[in-house]
């Protein structure tokens, strides 16, 4: 049984369908990515899974349970964390407080401290800046903090919305390293990316979205070698 299963999801904003019935699955322990152009509905998909947006039709199952109508707070409690688009760290809170607020629903004090140290070991830069306000961090550091904050919820599934957006190539490489590290600890990752190349290299399975529909899917290697994908998303000119 897959960890997350989405069936025929339809979402509309003010009469316009952002998702026109998409279905996909995320297997336990894998990195699954949704790639596609701006406006394809990738962010809407994650926001709907998180309960921030209510779907028009379709169902979402997590660990076999129907979570379509469950509220955001319960969904976090069940083990789905989100790293939102644009990082959205709490600029007026310190780095440490941003991590603590990730553990807002948890009551296991000693384990929270352990997890803070774990996040600091993943991102030593955050430890150095522990007492700084998050708003003073660089973009890359904020992204690390947003990931760290999501890890603090002890999720089974971590969803990331464009973690590489607007970051320097070196920082992007670091972020992808961390995604692989999270996978190696048993976490499942659902990743949205415009950086299709990096995402396809990192992922186990990928779905391609176009204007609210899933058009193609396959393993990362399959899609990397597909000419249509290369042409549309990887910037390589067709040779035929």
């Amino acid at each position: 049984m897959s960890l997350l299963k989405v069936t025929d999801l339809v979402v509309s904003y003010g009469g316009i369908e952002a998702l026109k019935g998409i279905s996909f699955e995320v297997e336990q322990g894998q990195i699954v990515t949704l790639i596609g152009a701006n406006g394809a509905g990738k962010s809407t998909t994650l926001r709907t899974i998180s309960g921030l947006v209510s779907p028009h039709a379709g169902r979402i199952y997590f660990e076999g349970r129907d979570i379509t109508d469950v509220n955001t707070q319960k969904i976090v409690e069940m083990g789905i964390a989100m790293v939102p688009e644009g990082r959205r760290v709490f600029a007026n809170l310190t780095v440490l407080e941003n991590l603590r607020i990730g553990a807002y629903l948890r009551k296991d004090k000693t384990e929270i401290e352990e997890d803070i140290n774990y996040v600091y070991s993943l991102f030593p830069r955050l430890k150095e800046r522990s007492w700084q306000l998050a708003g003073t961090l660089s973009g890359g550091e904020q992204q690390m903090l947003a990931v760290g904050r999501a890890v603090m919820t002890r999720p089974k599934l971590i969803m990331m919305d464009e973690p590489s957006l607007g970051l320097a190539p070196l920082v992007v490489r670091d972020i992808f390293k961390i995604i692989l590290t999270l996978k190696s600890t048993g976490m499942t990752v659902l990743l949205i990316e415009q950086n299709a190349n990096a995402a396809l290299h990192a992922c186990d399975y990928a779905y391609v979205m176009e204007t609210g529909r899933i058009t193609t899917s396959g393993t990362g290697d399959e899609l990397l070698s597909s000419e249509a994908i290369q042409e549309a998303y990887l910037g390589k000119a067709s040779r035929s």
Partner: protein
Amino acid sequence: MFDTLLPYLLAGISVGGQYAMIAVGYTLVYGILRLINFAHGDIFTAAGFFMIYLTASLPIGISIPLVILLTVVLGFVVERVAYKPLRSAPRMSIMISAIGVSYLLQNLMWYITGGLAKQYPVLPFLSQTIRLGSAATKLVTIVTPLLTIGLVVALVMLINHTKIGMAMRAVSVDFETSQLMGIKINSVISVTFIIGSAMAAIGSVLYFTNYTAVTPTVGAMPGLKAFVAAVFGGIGSIPGAMIGALIIGICENLIKAAGLTAFSDAFTFALLIVVLLFRPTGLFGEKNTDKV
């Protein structure tokens, strides 16, 4: 010179402290909802009437905690009924709703009291006369600033050093991401209304002790001045609201000392205009540290 000014200074600090107790409610709610809670001054007045009706049959020692409790319930209900359903509506709608609540409360008070001024009970403890150097004053004059500073310090500690305080700060910048952390934003918002109303209730006990009667519109002026104080201090900042309120209270009374009593209210609103013109974020207004 000092001897003549001392009573005015004391009165200024005292009335400033009372404005501060109201101003905190404005600034707290604004900090989280970006809403000027126009009903806040009326909640303050309602607290005055609660006191009058409760002391009619209960001893003062029991009435005061009950007044705080009833005011808190009123603030909580107002938020749930008039503001919560508009959470995702444009800011203008919720502001209009706040104005509506203000009129509703005022008219309810007219209806219940029959429009007659009601006698505020004498609180013997706060009204006893004490001597400070050359000045004789009521004990409330000394109690108010001390209580205000104590409560504001406690509130700042709550916001900076507790889990609910951290949640309040998080919700104040980003509803959606706060939800993604598992924070129930409605509970956090209710907490801010509860704190604001409790402070207004305590402020009303201190304020009305100096007056003999309460009418349904009597809260409008102190409410408005507290609002100016919150803007002057930098709306959203709790220490700012207190300092703004103290400055306004002291200035008003110094103007009275100078024999210009008729202009003391005008001063407050002139100050508002000057602040809005030259420093719209106030003394301690939020600086934007967002990085895009």
